[in-house]
């Protein structure tokens, strides 16, 4: 079969529209030795954008400490996996959905929660808790109220219906987020250490199965959008938002865990940003295999979808799996019972090529490993940030009385009670919430106890702006303190690094400084980073957000009877200050 002839021709404009720089396009041509088809251009644009390839951040992420005696799986899979003893593992990750949430706060936040939950349960873990870290613009900005209300309702709407307790998080307000809010969602799951599932495919000629909801034209170019700086034309990019279906995801969870238990699954990968493309490529590349897809078999919600559209669709609540030989019928029966789509859409090969066929034509034929391995990687120029000078306490004019100062602090949106937010989240479902939102860290009992996990998300962006290295360290230290304050031993970290445009040296400088600070603190505290996410280009009209490297910390409590809450317990007791 021959490769499909190109309509339209690949023009420089088309390349630019796909977010590829001219030199990146040349790199791709050199790799494949010919002009790509449109579908191939779409595939590479999805694989090589910032969101999927981490091309600006990878060199720095490699400097983070990621190993430790408890670490079963560090960065590189759907989520990190940490041993918590008794044959159990905590599986967790954080991920951003900033741009979609700014455009459509309810659905953007909801699908963000859906995505991170899928990351956790594709590893074989049942989600036991969700957290989030949010940043909005100034309280008086006209859009802030609408965005806040929509995001909170969306997070609640998805998590409450899916049935996971949302137990913690953080929220802050600053005018630098007026045009670019942050929605970072974290999920934590529980698995048996000997029942963890990975993305790498194995075995030649095995069936590749599509599971979950049908494919529609949702978010085509969404992955590209998530990395593109906002401009005045945000309106134009609007139709790229997807609608979440927590009901379908709940069914997907139950069906996946059931077929995993039944021994049907060889490898599994969720279809997140860049959907079918990145999930299929990842399965093949990690397993050292080729993949051949036949798109005629893909369950579609709309008629007349092209190969390009199917490969780039971001429809939610979908998975890709390689099934154990002979288990197809059993797996299909389980999925049908849960009312979900199930289709064999391809097979593994020994060619190391990624071949996509549709209606008898070859729409793409690419070297599978190179799509990931040969993705551009940049050591971007960065200027070392000039830390702001330290202000001596005596230089601060003392113009307000202590009482007024206290009142102002308590009233400030960053410090006031967040009850309005967390009461919209079901934080009690599953019956294991020992410490609900409102304390230092959430505490969730593990199975029937006495073990428990402590969970927190932290960062103070103005510190990171004043001194990225110290700010990065401080975010880790704060997470560490919140965990120890409830009586937990901190065991590992996930992070979500939110910054502006990395092509600007001063922004890259902030990024580098924060990563170094996080690395230094994690190193010193034996607090490895096991998963995370990077969100760059958080800018509007050239104005960047505050540098916001959110840290999600996980701690282990061996006996929850020995955990502690922050409330005073009785009158007349002494109050101590510890530390320096």
């Amino acid at each position, binding site marked *: 079969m021959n490769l499909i002839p190109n309509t339209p021709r690949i023009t420089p404009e088309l390349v630019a529209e796909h977010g590829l720089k001219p030199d990146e396009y040349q790199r791709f041509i050199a790799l494949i030795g010919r002009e790509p088809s449109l579908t191939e251009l779409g595939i590479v644009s999805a694989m090589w954008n910032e969101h999927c390839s981490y091309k600006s951040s990878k060199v720095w992420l490699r400097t983070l400490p990621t190993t430790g005696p408890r670490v079963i799986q560090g960065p590189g899979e759907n989520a990190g996996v940490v041993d918590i003893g008794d044959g159990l593992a905590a599986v967790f990750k954080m991920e951003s959905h900033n741009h979609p949430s700014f*455009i*459509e706060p309810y*659905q953007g936040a909801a699908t963000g929660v859906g995505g991170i939950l899928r990351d956790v349960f594709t590893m074989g873990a049942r989600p036991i808790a969700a957290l989030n870290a949010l940043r909005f613009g100034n309280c008086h900005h006209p859009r802030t109220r609408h965005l806040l209300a929509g995001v909170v309702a969306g997070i609640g709407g998805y998590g409450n219906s899916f049935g996971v307790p949302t137990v913690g998080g953080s929220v802050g307000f600053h005018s630098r987020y007026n045009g670019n809010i942050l929605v970072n969602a974290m999920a934590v799951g529980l698995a048996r250490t000997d029942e963890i599932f990975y993305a790498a495919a194995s075995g030649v000629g095995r069936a590749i199965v599509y599971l979950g*909801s049908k494919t*529609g*034209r*949702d978010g085509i170019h969404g992955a590209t959008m998530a990395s593109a700086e906002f401009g005045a034309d945000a309106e134009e990019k*609007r*139709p790229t*938002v*997807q*609608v979440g*279906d927590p*009901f*379908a995801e709940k069914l997907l969870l139950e069906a996946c865990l059931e077929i995993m238990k039944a021994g049907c699954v060889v490898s599994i990968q969720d279809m997140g940003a860049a959907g079918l493309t990145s999930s299929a490529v990842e399965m093949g590349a990690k397993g050292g295999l080729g993949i051949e897809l036949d798109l005629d078999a893909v369950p579609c*919600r*709309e008629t007349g979808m092209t190969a390009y559209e199917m490969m780039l669709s971001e*429809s*939610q609540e979908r998975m890709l799996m390689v099934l154990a030989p002979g288990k197809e019928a059993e797996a299909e029966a389980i999925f049908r019972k849960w*009312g979900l789509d199930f289709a064999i859409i391809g097979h593994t090969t020994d060619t190391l090529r990624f071949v996509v066929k549709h209606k008898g034509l070859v729409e793409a034929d690419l070297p599978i490993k190179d799509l990931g391995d040969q993705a551009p990687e940049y050591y971007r120029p960065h200027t070392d940030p000039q830390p702001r000078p330290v202000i001596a306490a005596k230089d601060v004019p003392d113009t307000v009385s202590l009482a007024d100062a206290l009142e102002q602090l308590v009233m400030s949106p960053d410090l006031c009670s967040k009850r309005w937010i967390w009461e919209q989240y079901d934080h009690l479902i599953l019956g294991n919430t020992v410490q609900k939102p409102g304390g230092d860290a959430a505490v969730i009992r593990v199975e029937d106890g006495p073990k428990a996990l402590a969970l927190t998300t932290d960062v103070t962006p103005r510190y990171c702006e004043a001194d990225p290295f110290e700010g990065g360290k401080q975010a880790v230290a704060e997470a560490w303190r919140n965990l120890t304050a409830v009586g937990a031993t901190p065991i590992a970290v996930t992070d979500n690094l939110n910054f502006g445009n990395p092509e600007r040296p001063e922004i890259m400088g902030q990024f580098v400084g924060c990563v170094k600070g996080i690395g230094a603190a994690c190193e010193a505290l034996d607090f490895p980073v096991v998963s995370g996410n990077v969100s760059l280009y958080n800018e509007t009209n050239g104005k960047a957000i505050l540098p916001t490297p959110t840290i999600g910390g996980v701690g282990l409590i061996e006996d929850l009877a020995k955990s502690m809450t922050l409330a005073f317990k009785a009158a007349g007791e002494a109050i101590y200050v510890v530390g320096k």
Partner: protein
Amino acid sequence: MKARVIVTLKSAVLDPQGKAIEGALRSLGVAGVQSVRQGKVFDVELAGNDKAAAEGVLKEACDKLLANTIIETYRVEFAE
């Protein structure tokens, strides 16, 4: 003056509610329904009797609040 605003999901947007309703009708034995898509309707009372002005007000109401034009479209109808 009375008007009705109908807000529906754009046709390419997933409608999980509609899908669930289709399934339910099928299992209730209601035959002949091929697809269902759910939307919202707003029955609005407006001051005055000027239809052109009312149209303007409703367009503003839709763009600012009633519809999210990223995923929805709207239509305004006047009672005869």
